[in-house]
């Protein structure tokens, strides 16, 4: 048996294996697990799974890879932050190269919150402009970076804060809850888990927010706009009617609504397009 025959046998074997793991839905991400895209797609995934569908999540290091994977399968969708496409330095500029990529559903919009670590609950708003530089954990997502920089740069008196970037929102949350490196966290998702771990939230990136906190940019109201982050589900081309219907049904399901009820800091959820 020649090496060529063996090679093609192996190719056949690998392709068979890949067919065997066909899932109903594949959601691809270009942010690490535990971040906003992961958290906000969770209610949809839970309700799809509740209806007996198999959903596979795949996390990639770049938007390009997530798109490539999603465009390879008709049942694959990319979970994105729409701002990533519009910004010049966004994480997902390559999406512009795919005009047939379009939004299938809007999963969420939420405010950012500035919360203390559970060990630093004595901190108050006034301390943000104090002499001591406070260290703020945040995910390195371009959306939060832009929002944070906008607030800090336009604030008067100047906020004495130093951003400490983490790979993912979840690592930033772990650092603020379990670690001792940082004083505060600037976060838009998983806020409930931080509060339940003993953190105290001081301000928000929006004037209207769930905890009725002061606007973080209040000292420069005219320069700082309300800042929300949104998460969408995008597909390559038009998804099949079957997939679109299943997603729409899942967004209206009780499981989805129950899931969201546990996350009151999110707004504008489940708005299908």
């Amino acid at each position, binding site marked *: 048996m020649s090496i060529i025959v063996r090679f093609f046998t192996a190719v056949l074997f690998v392709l068979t294996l890949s067919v065997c793991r066909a899932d109903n839905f594949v959601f691809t991400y270009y942010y690490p697990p*535990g971040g906003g895209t992961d958290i906000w797609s969770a209610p949809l995934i839970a309700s799809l799974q509740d209806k007996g569908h198999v959903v596979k999540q795949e996390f990639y290091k770049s938007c390009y890879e997530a798109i490539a994977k999603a465009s390879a399968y008709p049942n694959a969708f990319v979970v994105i932050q729409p701002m990533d496409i519009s910004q010049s330095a966004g994480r997902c500029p390559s999406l512009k190269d795919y005009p047939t990529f379009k939004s299938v559903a809007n999963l969420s919009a939420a405010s950012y919150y500035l919360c203390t670590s559970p060990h630093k609950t004595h901190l108050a708003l006034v301390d943000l402009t104090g002499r001591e530089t406070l260290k703020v954990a945040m995910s390195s997502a371009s959306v939060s970076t832009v929002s944070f920089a906008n607030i800090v740069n336009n604030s008067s008196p100047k906020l004495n804060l130093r951003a400490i970037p983490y790979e993912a929102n979840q690592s930033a949350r772990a650092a603020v809850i379990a670690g001792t490196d940082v004083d505060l966290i600037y976060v838009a998702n998983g806020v409930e888990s931080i509060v339940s771990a003993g953190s105290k939230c001081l301000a928000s990136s929006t004037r209207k927010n769930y905890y009725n906190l002061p606007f973080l940019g209040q000292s420069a109201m005219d320069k700082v706009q309300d800042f929300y982050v949104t998460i969408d589900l995008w597909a390559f081309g038009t998804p099949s009617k079957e997939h679109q219907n299943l997603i729409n049904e899942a967004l209206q399901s009780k499981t989805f609504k129950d899931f969201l009820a546990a996350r009151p800091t999110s707004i504008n959820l489940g708005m299908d397009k």
Partner: protein
Amino acid sequence: MSELVHLLPVIVLGIASGILIGVFPGLGPASGIMLLYPVLLGLPVTDLFVFYSVMMSSVQYYGSIPSIVYGVAGEITSTPAVHYGHAEFKQGRGAELLSGTATSSLIASIVGVVIFAISAQYTDFMKYFINNNPRLILLTAIIALISIASPQKILALFFVTVGLTLGHVGYNTFSQEYFLSAPGFLASGIPFVPVFIGFLMLPEIYYYAKHKPPAVDVYMGEFNIKTRLTNLFRFPPVLSSLRGSMIGAILGLVPMVGTSISSIIAAAVEKKVCNNNQKIVISAEAANNSACITVLIPLIFLALPVIPSESVIMALAERNGFGIANSFDLLSSISTLLIVILLMVNAVNWILAGIFYQGMVSIYVHLYKIIYPLVIALSLAICLYEGLTNHQIELYLILTSIAVTAGFLVREFSVRVALVFGMLLSASFSSELFRFVLLNF
């Protein structure tokens, strides 16, 4: 119970992989995981770690069989088994020794599991490593040890530095800039699969494919289950097993060198204590097995790979949602289950390796002609599959060709490991270093 039933296919896959990887020298756990890449990609993180733990624990039972019978060392861990075990085998004491090493491995696994269980109770101490400075120290230690552990230290240091640089290629989330890449071109960095397969795995497999097992015609004992059961239950030197287990359990926690040197150190200690070939092999094999369980502690607790195979499984686990931020959640949900599974699997392996070793030898003798070429073909197919599914087939083909050529040029395995490990640790190391500067200056 339902969880165990759900995990049964993964457990069976882990044992089967462990048998093949152990029986065929040179395959190694990292290559084994890579060969199952398309299957493992679909597994949730819990299943992935169960598979890995089962496979790692199984490999040790079967890895000693070709070493003792044929004197062929698949990895550096098999050196004592080759040196002392094969000599015993040639004296006609192979059957006894194979049963004895199986029992000592079982004792070692119990020691390893106990240490794992105790560690799972002290997660607060482990959480200290969520902080930047201790994590940076650990990562630096791993990188330094990669070079120190190699026989060609300077070359390994150079290659680990090259690996750290190559791992930096792609979009940087901190600087939001592309390093030696652009949108659509290496934006995610240099793909791991062609580098691992081409640079690390194929040259090693090729080497073993060229070497056929030496003809061995030595009496291995009667094929009589009763006799073998008696051999199995005849208590092995308990003190030797325990000494080896403790050495392995502690050294398993030492990044990069733990699993590879534990058996050698255990053998050296045993030689000093009693200078008996059987006891030396039994102690060395016990050290191997307990190290393979304690090595799971940094991986599952801190999302920190400390041996090459862990870096491969970590790459898969990260893709499926695992990281330092949720490692403790995962640990609390699977630690009890994992302990139960490890104990059960070790009992199964004890019986399989301790009684049916002749079957394992037959697998090696009859399949070695097919298995190595098949592994080479399968590895290339996996590169092709990854390239196709990522819409980067040209890139994958070019990278695989470059990696294979470079892999054959760099003869020393540990030097090649240095480059691959450097690439894998690059992102973590640079982000911890970046945060270190921000936090301390």
